[in-house]
């Protein structure tokens, strides 16, 4: 059962506000006193996906759904899409422009970072169809929780 769902609009090429949604997600999860390691993984993935959408995407949306056993972050954009997802997953591969690089991004680390920090990563994209990145993070089962 989903406990909380939050949606944040994303604007393409808006580098001044890029990342705000993920910082808000992080602050909310911290206020709920969830496991710090889990929050860190969610925040990093959410931020990388959000930056990708702002760099490459048309406008889009970031959605975070918290349930008892998992957190799902989905970032959807209406941008150019990814022609070769396997290639895009390779560390160092990037099609980002100079502006993204000036922001400290665009080095081809975004998708590999997302893959290594999320429990599940699903990318659905095609040229001209935009991109949907869905990341699942498992919460610790109740019996493993600290007393």
């Amino acid at each position: 059962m989903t406990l909380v769902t939050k949606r944040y609009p994303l604007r393409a090429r808006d580098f001044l506000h890029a990342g705000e949604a993920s910082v808000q997600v992080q602050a909310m999860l911290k206020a709920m006193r969830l496991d710090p390691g889990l929050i860190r993984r969610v925040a990093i993935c959410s931020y990388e996906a959000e930056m990708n959408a702002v760099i490459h995407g048309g406008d889009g949306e970031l959605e975070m759904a918290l349930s008892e056993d998992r957190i799902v972050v989905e970032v959807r954009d209406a941008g150019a899409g990814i022609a070769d997802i396997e290639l895009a997953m390779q560390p160092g591969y990037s099609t980002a422009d100079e502006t993204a690089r000036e922001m400290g991004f665009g080095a081809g680390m975004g998708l590999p970072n997302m893959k290594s920090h999320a429990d599940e990563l699903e990318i659905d994209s095609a040229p001209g169809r935009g991109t949907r990145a869905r990341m699942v993070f498992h919460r610790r089962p109740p019996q493993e929780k600290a007393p």
Partner: protein
Amino acid sequence: MKLSEIVRELEAVPLTEEDHRGLEITRCAGSDLMSDVLARPTDGILLLTGLTSIQTVRTAKIAGVAAVVFVRGKTPPPETIELARAERLPVYASPLSLFVCCGRLHACGMTGLDGRR
């Protein structure tokens, strides 16, 4: 190493209110690439960077960075400092290069992110 000692060693000036000077930091990263910062264990570290965009502050928040020193005498744009203030992230500016900053802190016993020297 106390943040106040780090600041003195790097000849840095504060860009936000100074209420974290007693903060103890043992690990440090020097990078202009935010995705590299996000890929590493960065909780509670000092970040040395020449990248003054607002994304440096957001990356620091997301990655749990304790303090940021902008190197090479760079002055960040107002929005970067405003966000750092709002997020209560201590940020400083040093006139020294990234290389010299790293060297000075290494000589004081600071380690890399994996604890190696």
